C-alpha cells in the first residue's frame, strides 16, 4: 500500500519540495522521511486524504529547512536547476530553464508553491486549496503575484 501511495504522489512531492527548496538532496530527504513516517503508522489510521496530508507535510518540512539562515544562503546557489526542458533534446531551453529556476527560487514560498503546483503540476486552484487547507481565492492570488514577478524577471528572456 505504501508503494501505491508513492507511485501516486511520491514524484509530485519530490518536485514540489524541489520547487520550494531548490535542492535535489533536500527534496529527496524530505520525501524519504515522509514515507518512512507514514510506514510507521498502520494504514488503517492514515488520514482519509493521505495525498493532501503528504503535500502539507512536505510543505511544513520544506519551510522548516528554509528557516535556517545558513540554509537560505546555500539555497541561493541551487545545486541543480529545479526546472528542466520537457524536450531534453532542445538545448536552447537549457539556459532559459536555468534562469527560470533562479527566478522561481527567489519567489516567496507561498507564491513559489502556487506556481509550481498550478503551472507545473497541473493542479487546479481548488485542488491546491484543498491540499493546503486554504481558500482557492488565496491560491489564485498567490499565483498571480508569483507569475507577475516571474514576468518581470524573465520578460526579456528568449526560450
Amino acid at each position: 500500500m505504501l508503494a501505491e501511495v508513492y507511485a501516486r504522489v511520491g514524484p509530485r512531492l519530490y518536485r514540489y519540495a524541489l520547487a520550494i527548496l531548490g535542492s535535489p538532496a533536500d527534496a529527496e530527504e524530505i520525501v524519504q522521511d515522509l514515507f518512512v513516517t507514514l510506514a510507521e503508522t498502520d494504514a488503517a489510521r492514515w488520514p482519509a486524504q493521505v495525498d493532501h496530508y503528504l503535500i502539507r507535510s512536505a510543505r511544513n518540512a520544506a519551510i522548516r529547512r528554509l528557516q535556517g539562515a545558513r540554509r537560505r544562503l546555500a539555497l541561493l546557489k541551487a545545486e541543480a536547476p529545479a526546472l528542466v526542458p520537457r524536450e531534453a533534446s532542445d538545448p536552447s531551453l537549457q539556459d532559459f530553464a536555468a534562469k527560470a529556476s533562479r527566478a522561481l527560487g527567489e519567489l516567496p514560498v507561498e507564491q513559489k508553491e502556487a506556481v509550481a503546483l498550478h503551472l507545473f503540476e497541473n493542479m487546479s486552484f481548488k485542488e491546491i486549496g484543498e491540499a493546503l487547507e486554504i481558500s482557492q481565492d488565496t491560491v489564485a492570488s498567490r499565483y498571480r503575484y508569483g507569475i507577475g514577478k516571474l514576468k518581470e524577471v524573465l520578460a526579456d528572456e528568449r526560450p
Partner: protein
Amino acid sequence: MSVPDLEARLRRLKLAEPPDALEGRMLAAAASMGRLRRRFRMALAAMAASMLLAVTAGRLSGAGTSVPAARPAPSVPSEILAIDPALARRAELLAWIAPMPAPSFRATHDALRKLSQGELP
C-alpha cells in the same frame, strides 16, 4: 510579454523528476522500520508473559498473603536486549520496583513506553 505568453514559455519546462533510486531507498527504509516494530512487539509480548509467570509464581508461593513471599527476577527477552539494552535493564528494574497484580501486554507496553520517554524513574 503577456502572462499567457510567459505561461506558455514556462510550460515548455517541467520540474525535475526524482531519481529512480529514491523509491527503492524509501521502501527499504520503511521495510526496516516495519521489521523493527514487529520485533519489538514480539519482545514486549514475551516480556509480559515472563513477568506474569514471575508474579504468579510469587503468589502461589505466598498463598493467603497479600505480598508474594518470593519473586524470581523476570527474564528479559533477548530480543529486547538486542534492540535496546539500556531500556531492557530499566524494564527489569521496573518489574522489581512496581510489581503488577496481573501484568497485561498493554500495561507492559505502556510502562516500557514511559521508560523510553523518561517518564518513570
